[in-house]
């Protein structure tokens, strides 16, 4: 249950340095009250750190330092409560690369992320295109589509788990009405992961849509005029003008959704607990199981650092992929 990943609603990612002041030092001339200290001394003190202090201190103490501690744990066969810890060097890392459960979880996580993000982006973009106008109906529809995003993963997992239960679920009930046999979605080895992906997409399509609505509205009309003057049809307009214009938003949405999907846990834990037979076992689910059920804190820490490196790598890759094509 991560509270660090929350979904933003702004459209554009960072552009470095734009809009900053050319001078970064405090003004050397005295303030209106003629404060002597600013006039005499050449200040080297950087106010930026004071602005950032509360946030950096809190993040440093309660997030960054614990992250480093888990790195430390990962080099030991760390057991909470033990009087001495066995040093393993890279032992945990070697072990994890030989662990079939790790590779399975890695595969599940990557497949989940690839499909979920791709579907969230395409469906979000498509629905944004269809709901661009600002009238009452589109506003209602947009609100409804966005609503699942604010509901916690635990609640969503619980409700969908019941919905897909062949005995009490609505899905099962409706298929029975049609005379068919209700499908056991979450216990079928072939359907469990697609079902979880479906729920993840269901939840976050609205979020992607909102981002794209904002971005699409910001595209200046002149571009379309120009395109039309060149004789482009609708499809060509979409392909060559619309999509490139919202590339920064595409990057942002993709990055955030990727980071979120790679860390999927609550959904999997509540709906299937990694089953059946590990078909939906995500990396964080593996970390949780090894850390808290099997009490192998060191090993779980090693897996989480591998996951962290993976997320960092994919994020940097995406930045690369999208940035240099930015025609803005």
């Amino acid at each position: 249950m991560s509270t660090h990943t929350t979904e933003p609603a702004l459209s554009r990612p960072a552009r470095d340095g734009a809009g900053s002041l050319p001078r970064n030092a405090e003004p050397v001339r005295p303030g209106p009250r003629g404060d002597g200290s600013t006039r005499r001394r050449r200040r080297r003190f950087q106010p930026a750190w004071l602005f950032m202090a509360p946030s950096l201190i809190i993040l440093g103490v309660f997030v960054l330092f614990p992250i480093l501690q888990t790195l430390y744990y990962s080099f030991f066969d760390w057991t909470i409560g033990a009087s001495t810890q066995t040093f393993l060097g890279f032992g945990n890392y070697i072990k994890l690369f030989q662990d079939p459960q790790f590779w399975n979880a890695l595969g599940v996580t990557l497949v989940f992320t690839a499909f979920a993000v791709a579907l969230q982006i395409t469906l979000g973009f498509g629905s944004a295109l269809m709901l661009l106008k600002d009238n009452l109906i589109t506003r209602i529809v947009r609100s409804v589509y966005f609503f699942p995003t604010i509901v916690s993963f635990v609640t969503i997992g619980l409700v969908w788990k019941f919905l897909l239960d062949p005995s009490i679920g609505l899905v099962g009930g409706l298929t029975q009405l049609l005379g068919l046999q209700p499908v056991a979605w979450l216990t079928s080895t072939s359907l469990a992961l697609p079902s979880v992906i479906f729920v993840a997409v269901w939840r976050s399509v609205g979020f992607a849509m909102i981002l794209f609505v904002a971005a699409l509205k910001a595209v200046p009309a002149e571009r379309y005029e120009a395109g039309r003057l060149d004789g482009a049809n609708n499809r060509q307009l979409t392909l060559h003008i619309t999509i490139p214009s919202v590339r920064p938003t595409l990057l942002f949405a993709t990055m955030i959704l990727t980071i979120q999907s790679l860390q999927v846990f609550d959904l999997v834990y509540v709906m299937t607990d990694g089953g059946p037979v590990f078909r939906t076992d995500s990396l964080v689910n593996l970390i949780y199981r090894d850390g808290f059920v099997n009490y192998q804190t060191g090993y779980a820490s090693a897996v989480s650092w591998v996951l962290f490196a993976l997320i960092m790598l994919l994020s940097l890759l995406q930045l690369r992929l999208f940035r240099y094509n930015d025609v803005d």
Partner: protein
Amino acid sequence: MSTETGVRVRRPGAMTALAASSKWILLVIGLVFAIVPFIWMVSGSFRSESDLFGNPASLFPTSITLHGYLGVWEQLPFLRLLGNTFLFAGVTTAATLLFDSLCAYALARLKFRGRNLAFILVIATLMVPFQVTLIPVFIELFHFGWLNTYQGLIVPRATSAFGIFLFRQFFISIPTELDEAARIDGAGHFRIYWRIILPLAKPAIATVAILNFMNLWNDLLWPLVVTSDPNMLTLPAGLTLFGGQHVTDHAVLLAGATISLIPIAVAFFFAQKYFVAGVATTGLK
């Protein structure tokens, strides 16, 4: 409002009737998928076990029972938990608005050595799931003596990397002319931040406020880690005290889920014009 752009063609009637109706069919299907689970959840909280098992195809209860809600009411110090949740989510959100925007101002407006590193460190905190840092944080809280206290609940969450990121994006897009003008008048950084940037950032403030509030509201692992006293839990955390491996009463679980959803649904309803109408307002290019 922003101008009408997009792929809407100027020639009327160019979009064929078929395309238009298939577009609406798709949207309606999407609507059904989006709404029905919630309707089922709320109606399920009013249904008895025999109703649920006997009529799985039915979306609505065949007879209303309140035992789900009564069960929640009886077994939890309900109002106390509700108060805790508002306190936790409210105060913490207020703190994040202040700290996040301060930090973002520095990252957006001030050039200093180590700025990129600071930003990367902030973003990196988004890449680690909480389960991983849970144990070290718990031990830290113990050393501070903050277990089972409100400050232990609030302070570690009083800033959010997401909020910093979002404010930074927003601030970058605010033109610098206003800053320049203020600087010529002798204003220092803090006054620029307080008097100029923040008032312009109202949409971002609203967005961060609402999203952070909702996330804090929904967070059930954090309160369970910090406190073991059931009276200090937040409502969603308290609702995890129902149910285990074997579910014997769906109505109670669904009632709990519905109850914890209502406040943020209400907040969403009032605030939705800030996102849904397209967050983009001044300077989001």
